[in-house]
């Protein structure tokens, strides 16, 4: 299992604390197969001062505005993300495979009451899942926002990649809350 990946805390917690998930082993197994080890493939966090431009993203119920983005290879973009809906939404930059893996983690968050329809239970997020792991959602490629909240992500894109920006709150991606993110040409 790759250790150097996003959402390590959640992923490892699933494997480390089976007793909390009695009768639900299926989510732990395989949820990360191929989901990580992307390293440079998706790029990495950038410095705001280095950003070439700012892109505003509005999150509605359950779609983005805009619904597609193009960035130049190697470009650093500052995203201003605002949740204008009435439900919790995520803005997450990754590959389709990473999103699929993250959706299983988000399902866990719902099942543990960390994620409610319109609020995030930050207390519960800090719950020790064993070995100091928590369900905190603090990865640089993603923001998870309650209605009315805003956040910023500065992202340095690689020269080329097959990326999507997506909301992995259960059901939202499948309903179409995902946008294409063209890198390069």
């Amino acid at each position: 299992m790759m250790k150097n990946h996003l959402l390590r805390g959640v992923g490892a917690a699933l494997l480390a604390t089976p007793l909390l998930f009695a009768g639900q082993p299926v989510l732990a197994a395989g949820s990360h197969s191929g989901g990580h080890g992307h390293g440079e493939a998706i790029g990495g966090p950038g410095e705001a001062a280095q950003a070439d431009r700012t892109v505003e993203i509005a999150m509605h119920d359950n779609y983005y505005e805009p619904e597609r983005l193009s960035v130049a290879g190697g470009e650093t973009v500052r995203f201003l993300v605002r949740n204008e809906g009435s439900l919790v939404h995520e803005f997450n930059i990754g590959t389709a495979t990473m999103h699929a893996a993250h959706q299983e983690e988000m399902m866990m968050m719902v099942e543990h009451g960390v994620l409610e329809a319109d609020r995030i239970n930050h207390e519960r997020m800090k719950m020790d899942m064993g070995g100091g792991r928590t369900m905190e959602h603090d990865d640089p490629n993603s923001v998870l926002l309650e209605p009315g909240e805003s956040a910023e992500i500065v992202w340095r894109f690689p020269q080329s990649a097959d990326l999507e920006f997506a909301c992995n709150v259960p059901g939202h991606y499948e309903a179409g809350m995902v946008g294409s993110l063209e890198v390069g040409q």
Partner: protein
Amino acid sequence: MTARAEETTMRRSPSGGRRGVAAATLAAALAALALPDITTAGTYDLTIDKVTVERGGSKQTVLGYNGSSPGPTLRFREGEEVTINVTNRLSVPSSIHWHGLILPTGMDGVPGLSYEGIAPGGTFTYRFPIVQSGTYWFHSHSGQQEQDGAYGSIVIEPAGREPFRYDRDYVVLLSDDHDHDGASILANLKQMPDYYNRQQRTLGDFFADVSAEGLSATLADRTDWGEMRMMPTDIADVQDYRYLINGLEPEQNWTGLFEPGERVRLRFINASAMTYFDLRIPGLEMTVVQADGNNVQPVTVDELRIAVSETYDVIVRPTEAQAYTIFAETMARDGYARGTLAPSPGMSAEVPALREPPLLTMADMGMAHGDMGHGDMGHGDMATGDMDSGAMDTGAMSGGESTMAAEPAEAEAMDHAAMGHGTMEAEASREGSMDHAAMGHGSMDHSDMAAGDSFYAPGSGLTPRAADGGRFLSYADLKAQKPLYAERPAGREIEIRLTGNMERYIWSINGIKYEDAEPIVLQYGERVRFKFVNETMMTHPMHLHGMWSILDTGSGKWDPIKHVVSVAPGTTVYTETEVDAPGRWAFHCHLLYHMASGMFREVRVEGAPQQAAAEAGR
């Protein structure tokens, strides 16, 4: 052989639109200008016809609209003022009810309550505003014409953007078609209630049970069933149906096309007279985005049960260039409707085998559940004692042990302490404050939890389980995307006991059939709470016309609104209604022969302000 249904669609005619705008008063035109979407008006013409179709290899005469059965798909737009001219070309009276539409009482199409119906050769003109969006349907509300093919679909485009997107859009209308016409079926049921039950237990079953369970247990079991005047195989009153998708039999294979990677919206409508279906598309997950026309927070499942007259909209995303079977197996497992999603016509995928028919248990008889009614659980008023005397204490179910033994999973599933659920404190469980929201039923998608669907009696033989061990949609999963009504306490509770005498084929509410009952009187502006107690062993899809039923799933402000609420045997289900529509409304079980046999009430809404009353009267 593959066939694609000729989909007939009615859209508003341009001339109708012009006429509507021209007729608008200056004030109305100004009001329209203030709206982001200019108000439209459409005129539609429907005829009620006898139609010849090919079924079971021979020609049959059924009922339909504009020459087809199912009738055309009516496509409206939210905010539109529709005018629908309906001409009855039958030799008997008829009617059209717009199922699930919120409209003035005089436009609801129920003979005897809304109007007098449409005489042979006559035309009735419906005029009403479209105040909602989503998937609905229409059908005759006269006699048993619905059984004979008098139904069609309604698709209402929303005024704004939907909270989901898709590339293709198909209506998938399910129905049950019989060689006998509806009137004959009702007559046969009245004469012999098990006339159509092909799954009766035999003398062979009796000896098999004796060897498995012992003579006294078997005799006790048979005595209990005899006293209920029911049989464990009473899942469906009527069998020998052909099950159709968009009017086509399984071999005719209705097909919807897609390009791999596209999102396909399927609008499932159960237009059956009597048949519940368990729906799945092997190889595809279904993301449910609407229930009964109302947006729900998207929830992805492997299988769902659609009650008679419900609708569910799902989005599927086939990524492979292969065919997928839409498999709608009846709840009684006596047959299936089948269609296909494929990248090109003529393709097909494997059709799954029917699963074993369910057997009703003592839980479905109402003998094993005590006070475990769902609504009780949702309100934290369930005392520990009730739990102990109910499903938690198997010792109390002496009569039920033989059937319970076949369902060992249920006992485990109801052991809340063993759920290991992070948010459910063991302490709270002991004190009986069972908050469904905190239990997170909506998200427990694991097969061993499926047995815990709180909308079925613990131990019920009808509790759905996904064929592939995946997630089966529960009512508890349905959460309003955007609640229509603010939360507030109901002013009073009205008990609706669902009752019947199977031996005489009489179905009733609170023991009284429609003809002998007084209307249920509601006051305009109040919020009432209905307590449905199913005292029969059949599952009843209860349909309130004219106003929404807010289904209490324990989700508080996210409780979904529906037009039909299915009440399983041995359960208690609560709904609330904001009484916002004056007039006379039908309230009934949507199983056609239950409705016809007396499980029906008039709901009369009184005390409306003059304006509202005037609108209702038009």
